[in-house]
């Protein structure tokens, strides 16, 4: 019993103002410790973001007009649809490419260290550098085109850079580790004796996969899909660097409008983007594994 109580209150919970009559007074220490950070983040992060978002309902006067006009706003609708479409494609590609790698990471322990290095190397590299790498690869005189021409498969370079395809490839590459790691986590938690039991009962490998492995890894898949999708919705650097000039994302549209000092519009779009991300997370947060993935998304 006492152990349960200790765990509940956390480490150091019982140190300090705890003996004698003052033990029943609320302990202020935790609040004092957290206060500097709370004040810092309120002043320099939360309040600025909220103040900016307020422009969407207070500019030019108190109004909901900025939101009311969105459904008829062709630029917004096209951008929003493009952002969703890109995120969807990227999520699907990441899932298709990520699952086999996660399987290999868990089921081939001999290769696991090298696989892990190959996943983490790009993961630890900044988004800017990775986007630049794709510019090098996909450019007009990039490696990809040069190789195809050298192989005699094409005469003139293909236009890949600055198209939606380039965005999809580069974003899939950047977000792939976010898919692999939660799935690998879920796979690792599957009791190996279940798999032995299945094959012992004469189930062929593909059926064991479909009936045992896949269903049991679903929490990881759900977490990975959600993480990748929500992160993809907010992408800015990569589509701006390698994407097409006409197929822009919400984030790019927001940045453009800020450059034009159209704060009301930028704030409205920001609110929509934030609300969409939060709504998606909120809707699926209770799925097993998902909450964890977001807390652990420290790269």
């Amino acid at each position, binding site marked *: *019993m*006492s*152990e349960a109580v200790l765990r509940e209150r956390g480490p150091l919970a*019982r140190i300090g103002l*705890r*003996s*004698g*009559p003052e*033990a029943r007074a609320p302990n202020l220490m935790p609040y004092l410790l957290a206060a500097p950070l709370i004040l810092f983040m309120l002043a320099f992060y939360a309040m600025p973001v909220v103040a900016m978002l307020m422009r969407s309902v207070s500019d030019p006067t108190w109004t909901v007009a900025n939101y009311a006009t969105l459904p008829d706003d062709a630029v917004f609708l096209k951008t929003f649809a493009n952002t969703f479409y890109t995120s969807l494609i990227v999520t699907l590609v990441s899932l298709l490419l990520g699952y086999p790698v996660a399987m290999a990471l868990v089921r081939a322990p001999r290769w696991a260290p090298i696989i892990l290095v190959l996943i983490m190397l790009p993961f630890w590299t900044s988004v800017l550098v990775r986007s630049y790498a794709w510019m090098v690869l996909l450019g007009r005189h990039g490696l990809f085109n040069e190789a195809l021409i050298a192989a005699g498969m094409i005469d003139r370079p293909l236009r890949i850079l600055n198209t939606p395809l380039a965005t999809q490839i580069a974003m899939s590459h950047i977000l792939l580790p976010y898919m692999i790691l939660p799935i690998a986590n879920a796979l690792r938690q599957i009791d190996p004796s279940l798999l032995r039991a299945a094959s012992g009962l004469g189930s062929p490998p593909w059926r064991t996969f479909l009936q045992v492995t896949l269903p049991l890894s679903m929490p990881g898949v759900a977490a990975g899909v959600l993480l990748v999708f929500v992160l993809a919705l907010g992408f800015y650097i990569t589509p701006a660097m390698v994407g097409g000039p006409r197929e822009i994302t919400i984030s790019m549209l927001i940045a453009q409008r800020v450059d034009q000092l159209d704060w009301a519009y930028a704030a409205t779009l920001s609110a929509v983007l934030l609300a969409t991300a939060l709504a998606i997370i909120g809707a699926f947060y209770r799925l097993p594994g998902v909450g964890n993935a977001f807390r652990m998304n420290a790269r």
Partner: protein
Amino acid sequence: MNGAARGASVSLADLEKRYDRTNAVDGVSLDIRSGEFLTLLGPSGSGKTTTLMMIAGFETPSAGDIAIDGTSVVAMPPYRRNIGMVFQNYALFPHLTVEDNIGFPLKQRGVPKAERTKLVAEALELVQLPGYGGRYPRQLSGGQQQRVALARAIVFKPRLLLMDEPLGALDKQLRENLQLEMRRLHADLGITFIYVTHDQEEALTMSDRIAVMNDGKVAQVGRPEDLYDRPCNRFVAGFIGESNFLPAVVRDLEDDVVVAECEGVMVRALCPTLRPASGSKVTLTTRPERLRFADAWNGNAPQNRMSVTVTEAVFAGERCRYLLRATDGTSIVLKEPSSAAIRRRQVGDQAEIAWSVADTILV
């Protein structure tokens, strides 16, 4: 140094600990004598660990008082109580060497480095781990870690040592060795030990006295043999060792012996604590190994006798274990030392069993 002064006396008075709606400890009063080895024994959730935590100062009592050597310590923080404590999982500091772990309490007390080194070496000697000072806890086996924890808890010469299931994580062989070692240490140091365990065998072998706890209360306090021979309630009889429980109706009272009708026969029993009225329904308890088949007593069969049918017979090496059915259907367990010279009963055999009045207790 004289023994009486070396150990602290501890007095718990109507101690209570409430969490929300439950009473983890519900009115415990206990006087622990100077130099005594007292064990708090009970199932999990009985309040024994919470009681220990209140003595150590990690839990604040909701009511009642704790006095050490006659002085209340309830308002005193744990770090000023000067009590040694050994934890269930050893709680050695993983970032410190064995030497620094054991030196930790000395450092807190401002003992100079040279003397610290000397005292640590002595403590390591005492727990038979000389030369292990430079290692880290993770480099030691479970038993060795336990010894280091012990050395750390006594190196600053506390007058009271608390132990919370210190042997729980060890295997049986090691546990038995360390039990003996702790007894020896207790005798050498002469300080007061309060030991918490759920293992009745451990409690019986090591303790001067045992306080059996159940539901936050002390069910019985006494020497191991008292608890075993004279359990004062059904819980203690059932928790310590194995017991038979026989329903009976009181017919007569003679001094401290009660005559009760049980399974159609008259049985005599001791009633150390209760004074039941004639005609009241009671429970009698006996130990399986104190029962014998009547013909095994070689004509000296004691007064209490009963006819039974053998329903199960198990040969278990050093003893035979029989499950018997009495006339009214009550199941009785009988354990008999095995011998090639004794005729073994078969299932279905009719037999008479006999046992002594001194081994029959009304609970």
